[in-house]
């Protein structure tokens, strides 16, 4: 099971890599780390504590912490949506932490609600099957991508840990190209 310390270490390492700081308010920070831990336990990945996740990795990929919206939000508002990652001036209390508006597109948010996601799935299920999956392999090597950050490698097995976002091996999937036999 993931511990708070692990979640914190991960966030600290990530902040360091990208030149950010973690929220300077210890209670605030603790609350967010607990939220991340809770989400990792119930969904299998640390989705954003301040957003409703669907529990379906395909729909939640953009809100796995650090989410796709962090970098533009820290640049523009001085903090990510939750306030976990902050800019130096906010960390040093030179700029006050202000509410950050939601940047995640509404269509994506809607996927966390049942009727909408079942509609999307129904659509996908009824779409005509015109493709066949072809594996790209050279010897035993295959293309693998990290479902969390998109990092791609060409090797026999997926890495134990993603060198970019530190996702676990389970988050790697093989890339298969789609060949269209239509016309």
């Amino acid at each position, binding site marked *: 099971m993931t511990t708070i310390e692990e979640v914190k270490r991960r966030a600290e390492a990530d902040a360091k890599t990208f030149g950010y700081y973690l929220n300077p308010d210890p209670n*605030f920070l603790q609350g967010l780390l607990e939220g991340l831990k809770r989400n990792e336990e119930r969904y299998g990945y640390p989705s954003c504590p*301040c957003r*409703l996740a669907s529990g379906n990795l395909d729909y939640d990929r953009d809100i796995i912490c650090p989410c796709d919206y962090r970098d533009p939000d820290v640049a523009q508002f001085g903090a990510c949506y939750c306030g976990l990652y902050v800019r130096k001036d906010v960390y040093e209390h030179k700029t006050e932490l202000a509410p950050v508006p939601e940047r995640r597109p509404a269509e994506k948010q809607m996927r966390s609600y*049942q009727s909408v996601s079942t509609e999307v799935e129904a659509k996908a299920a009824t779409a005509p099957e015109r493709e066949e999956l072809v594996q790209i392999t050279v010897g035993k090597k295959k293309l693998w991508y990290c479902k969390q950050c998109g990092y791609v490698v060409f090797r026999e097995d997926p890495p134990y840990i993603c060198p970019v976002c530190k996702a676990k091996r389970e988050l790697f999937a093989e890339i298969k190209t789609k060949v269209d036999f239509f016309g």
Partner: protein
Amino acid sequence: MNISKVAGTNNKHKVLVYALSTCVWCKMTKQYLKDNNVEYEYVDVDLCSEEEKNQIRKHIQDKGAPLGYPTTIIDDQKVITGFRKDLLKEALEL
């Protein structure tokens, strides 16, 4: 739906907070209401059933508000998205 009620001496308005159990801004909103003795109800949406989540989505969207948390609905009319102390203060006459 599991609606929790928090008692308070200030019950001028009917206050409903849609929150997430993991979200710090939601906690701050609840705490702010409590500190000001405002009586309110809240629902932790992430702990609801799929059907309930959908009902909540409809409720929020029918008010023309975005789907963010916390969403505070006052007298089933005014909607405040996010922890906005200034807007809460004004709407609840604190």
